[in-house]
């Protein structure tokens, strides 16, 4: 987690510097706002990953709240990890699912309705709603394997 957090915090830090220097050289609103947005895009997930990095090292919060329970780093973060260290559930992956296709078709029809008339929005909207229900139910039920 440490490299991940450093990577994203680095994004935030770089664009923070650029945003400040751009504002004080160009005095231009639009570009500054976008650069501030990029700064947040780096810092928000970056601090989340830093939080987990510290949690793995035994701190309940970023720098304080030391707990007895040290989780240790993940096997993919350890240079000496063996394949056996990763044994167990990797993750849960869905089998085949038709709902991404339905959802994509719905989005297609919905955006097409802005060009060809709102009747298409009914088609698109119902496809999107159906697929949202379907994909949620599939996640609860288990779907096709």
């Amino acid at each position: 987690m440490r490299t991940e957090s450093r990577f994203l915090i680095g994004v935030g830090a770089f664009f923070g510097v650029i945003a400040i220097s751009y504002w004080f050289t160009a005095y231009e609103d639009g570009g500054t706002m976008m650069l501030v947005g990029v700064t947040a895009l780096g810092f928000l997930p970056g601090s989340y990953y830093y939080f987990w990095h510290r949690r793995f090292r035994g701190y309940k919060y970023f720098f304080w709240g030391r707990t007895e329970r040290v989780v240790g780093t993940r096997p993919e973060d350890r240079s000496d990890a063996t394949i056996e260290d990763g044994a167990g559930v990797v993750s849960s992956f869905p089998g085949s699912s038709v709902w991404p296709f339905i959802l994509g078709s719905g989005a297609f029809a919905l955006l097409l309705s802005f060009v060809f008339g709102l009747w298409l929005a009914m088609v698109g909207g119902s496809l999107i709603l159906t697929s949202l229900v379907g994909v949620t139910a599939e996640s609860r039920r288990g779907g096709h394997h």
Partner: protein
Amino acid sequence: MTDVIAPPAVAHAHEEEHGPSGLMKWITTTDHKVIGLSYIITSVVLFYIAGLLAMGIRVQLITPSGTFISFQQFNELFSMHGSIMLYLFAGPFAFGGLANYIVPLQVGAPDMAFPRLNALSYWLYLGGSIMMLMGFAVAGGAANFGWVAYAPLSTSTYTPGAGQDLWVMALVLTGFSAIFTGVNLVGTIFYLRAPGMTMFRMPIFTWNMLVTAILILIAFPVLTAALVMLFADRHFGTKIYEVVGCHMASGAPDAHACGSSVLWQNLFWFFGHPEVYILALPYFGMVTTILPVFSRKPVFGYKTLVFATMAIAALSTGVWAHHMFTTGTVLLPFFSLMTLLIAVPTGIKFFNWIGTMWRGQIVYKTPFLFCFGFLLGFLMGGVTGVILAAPPLDFFVHTTYFVVAHFHQVLFGSAVFAGFGGFYFWFPKMFGRMLNDRLGKVHFWLLFVGFWLTFMPQYIVGLRGMPRRVASYPADLGWQSWNIASTIGAFLIAASFAVMLVNLWVSWRYPVSAGDNPWDAHTLEWFTTSPPPHHNYMHLPMIRSERPTWDYNHPTSPSIGVHGARYATATPGRDGPSGNGHPPGGNGSGVHAGEASASRAEGASGGSGGGDAGGQPGAAGEPGGSGEPGGPGGEGAP
């Protein structure tokens, strides 16, 4: 849901469970390899379509007052050529296609982090592509305001019509597709790496895709927002970019009722310049993956390449207004400086690429040649980019064919040369069969000659003042001969891609089995079968460097000195040209004990002559002419 469980020493692959078949199987798939291949096939088809549009442009420009197509059609052609190539080919081919297929394999993951989101990305991309092409079928024709859609030209006053609206909406769809893919790539790389695959052991291709994904997340939301505002301007009466009809009763312009057309350029290029690197960085990664394999060396300067990639990406987000020097509304020194700075990390990359090849035992296979073509083409494009970064020079050549030649050399160099180099490189992994090396070389040399013949004259004609996006030009300025040369080059490029179709047909009709690792390559994806099974890996090797497959196949010459390699009991020494006597086909024999891999070992021994004396990476193109009918993966080439 399938809980993918990794028991000790055995990874997660399995026979694909029974489910829908035929067309439904494709529609309902969540397998990153099927989705990646769908992306690749779709984007390459769109590449051919956009290439045909470019041929129409070049034919029109043979004569000063060409009558091949009307001016209106010419506008549609160059707009759609640029839009398809940039939005629908170059990006999706890299981050939707090859990255989707290769990145989970390279980090040792069973699939992408969010497989259904991945499928949705593809359907949005396909829908967006169809929507953009639908423009040719509606009254008024396809979008004709250029791929940049500058306001106020793109407002409803100057370009009304459904084709333009379809273009806007298509980009909203593909924009979301790209954002979802970016999220998916970041999630996969952060959470699904194999044990021991630390961040600084990831292949450079994966690193570049991570950086690209961050760039996507920076750039594409801005484009989507800008497009929604453009659509509101076109139809809902807002005046965000609109500069007409906002006068006071006295006729004097009213600043508060007026939009700003330069705002579009700011928003668009805040997307557009990172987009250039979204299109380039994946291809840098492909080159960095391919060059060491065919130089028979580890990559030179691994960490330097990673940090150079980050530096390029970071700087690229601070240079958007160098496309707007001539608007007179931007801070020239800031953007000029930032732009010139990009040359530094790019130069570092070139240094590393040359260092990788330096004193290597270079094997001139097709993927290597394509990467070499990339180096030369991208270098020329980069050098002219430095010229354009200087505002006084940019004022002179802005909106001329000089700029056209510059960005074609950059983007053609990366997306086409490196991209199809990657295609030739990974095709055996995807289909389990080789592409013919001789035909690949014919493809390369036709493309190489055609590339330089097409774009070098455009520099000259641009310096002599020919503007871009014109369907006719004065006859007495000496531009015609250069244009004819350029058109001849374009036909050579078209011929080269006809050769690629022949090559695909040959591979489909006369399959040559590839084996697991035909190039004796380094990274993890070459450890599994070709094509990989569902959820990718039966076994994983120990990961102790960024070259796990190489270390596994060459136990006496592990990646000593490569960053992250720590061998407690490593035997010093390297197998040089004389070889250290590995059994040929070291990829398979003995190590994959078990019935599941016995057939793989046989398949591999044909193609992967890992340790043979000459240091050749297998007899890849012509493995003994054994011509096994129906290699693994019986389905044909696209």
